[in-house]
């Protein structure tokens, strides 16, 4: 392997025997979803929901807002798979339209919380001292409020729109990201490779972003996935209360709100949007839980079961 003249010093050690070789990241991620049944089910569910949300609306023959007074409260049938509502609008089209709204709000909110919370936790914990203390107490204050109540207040203040929902929902989960990152940074910054980085002359910012943050990413991935799920439900409950997205924007919460007046006459109006909501949340939770268990050495099992 080496044409180096040094004999003893050049090292007759074998070049990385198979035990040390590991799969690439892509292979590991793919392997994880194939081995863990929960993750696989969650992923399939999620892909179906995403497909429905972003491609589905183009495949259905009805506009979600197109009324048809001669066909009000039609039960599910071959022409209207999920039936129609009080104005004769096709429920399937409406659920699909609501799906894309749900995903846009949930993904936006979770990523926004990540983008604010993670750097906040990283920088303040790396600086430490008073900065860290003050930030942590602010985070405690946010956590002390019920998340939904906080979201309601914020959305009322900012007015109903997708962007204000992002901020309203993200705000209460910022502390979770800040804490996760803080814990990991405090752990990582005592590691020897950080000291080694100091020794070669790395600056503080370079150490934080080049060395520490990449090692903090796995727990963040879990949190983002679980946060998608909670953002979907928070958005739905806000819209259900009439505080989130208001008509003509279609959202699952809004559909459920409409449905409650006709629960006995037209139960499908509640069942289908409710099921869509439940399945979406389930897909994220399944994936998030599976990743968390996989990263936790106490529950990690070779090959993965369940």
């Amino acid at each position, binding site marked *: *392997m*080496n044409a*180096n003249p*040094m004999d*003893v*010093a*050049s*090292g*007759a*050690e*074998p*070049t*990385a*025997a198979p035990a*040390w*070789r*590991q799969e690439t990241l892509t292979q590991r991620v793919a392997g994880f979803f194939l081995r863990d049944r929960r993750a696989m089910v969650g992923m399939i569910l999620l892909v179906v929901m995403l497909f429905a949300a972003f491609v589905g609306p183009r495949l259905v023959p009805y506009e979600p807002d197109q009324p048809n007074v001669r066909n009000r409260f039609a039960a599910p049938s071959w022409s209207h798979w999920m039936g129609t509502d009080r104005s004769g609008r096709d429920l399937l089209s409406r659920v699909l339209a609501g799906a894309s709204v749900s995903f846009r709000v949930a993904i936006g909110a979770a990523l926004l919380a990540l983008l604010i919370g993670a750097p906040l936790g990283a920088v303040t914990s790396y600086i430490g001292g008073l900065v860290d203390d003050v930030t942590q107490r602010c985070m405690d204050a946010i956590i002390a409020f019920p998340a939904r109540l906080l979201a309601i207040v914020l959305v009322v203040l900012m007015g109903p729109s997708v962007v204000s929902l992002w901020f309203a929902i993200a705000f209460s989960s910022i502390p979770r990201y800040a804490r996760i990152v803080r814990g990991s940074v405090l752990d990582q910054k005592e*590691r*020897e*490779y950080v*000291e*080694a*980085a*100091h*020794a*070669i*002359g*790395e600056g503080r910012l370079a150490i934080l972003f*080049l*060395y520490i943050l*990449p*090692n903090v990413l796995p727990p963040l991935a879990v949190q983002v996935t679980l946060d998608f799920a909670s953002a979907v439900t928070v958005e739905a409950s806000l819209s259900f209360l009439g505080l989130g997205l208001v008509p003509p924007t279609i959202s699952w919460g809004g559909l459920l709100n409409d449905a409650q007046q006709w629960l006995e006459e037209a139960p499908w109006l509640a069942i289908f949007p409710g099921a869509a909501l439940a399945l979406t949340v389930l897909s994220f939770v399944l994936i998030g839980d599976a990743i968390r268990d996989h990263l936790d050495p106490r529950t990690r099992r070779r090959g993965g079961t369940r």
Partner: protein
Amino acid sequence: MMEALGATDSNLPLLRVRDLVKYFDVSGGAFRRLLYGRRTVQAVDGVSFEVARGETLGLVGESGSGKSTTAKLIARLLPVMSGDVLLAGRDILKASTNEMKALRKDIQFVFQDPFSSLNPRMRTEMIIGRALSIHFGFRGEARRERVVQLLERVGLSAQHLERYPHEFSGGQRQRIAVARALATEPSLILADEPVSSLDVSIQAQVLALLQDLRTRLGLTMVFITHDLNVAEYVSDRIAVMYGGKIMEEGATDDVMQRPLHPYTKALLDTRPRIGHPGQLRPLEGEPAVPLNPGPGCRFASRCPLRIAECTEQAVPLVEKRMGHNVACVRS
């Protein structure tokens, strides 16, 4: 910069450490400090030594003797309480942040455990290349070429560039750590137990590598180890530390063949040697953790030759023979 001439004077020791002191507060928070008073561990307590250009000093001692702390203080990886560290006449501890960046180039560190001193999420090229970017502004292809040269210098090759630390064995990782240290072309290398975490068969290879590099590149080294055999093999001079103080210091042969301090003698007795079966004599007692110690000799509580005088007053390091210093009232 003070003593600018010193940098060119080859008679001057490259590294001069004077009265280095570092205490760690182990009171455990403000409340406990109030209840039980301040408790400090005197990890390094007045350590002084010099290392000449091209020389290797072996810093020997048990765990907790303060040898690693000493090295980290010299590299300014820990804040010092008092004392001076002069590298070629320049005071490292008083250097500003900017000056320190340049000084880091001159002092490099090899850590004990190559499993934790390499960032698990960086490829070899990046691990070594960062040092080149920081100090020489190397980038892209030029940097890659230089990294390959460094890898070859430590017995690895270009095929290892793209690998992550977990893909290497312990010995190979330590080679990478050495290559990283060499990247900045330092004049002084602080090696903190660089072979202690390696398999014995690999230890010899890494030691041979370090020796080879030392002679070819004219490196000056402070080599920290608890293993007397290793110290004897690599060092020109040996300093024996115990409880944060240097007990004995001198040329390797003097210290190994004619030890003056009872602690050194005890250490030598604990070491297994070929052809002397059954002569292993373990040292009685626990190694002293220097927690609020008295003024006297740190080794007194375990010393077979202890007299009243040992614990009453400080015992200075004095020259007993030519270039052979010892801190013991009984020697």
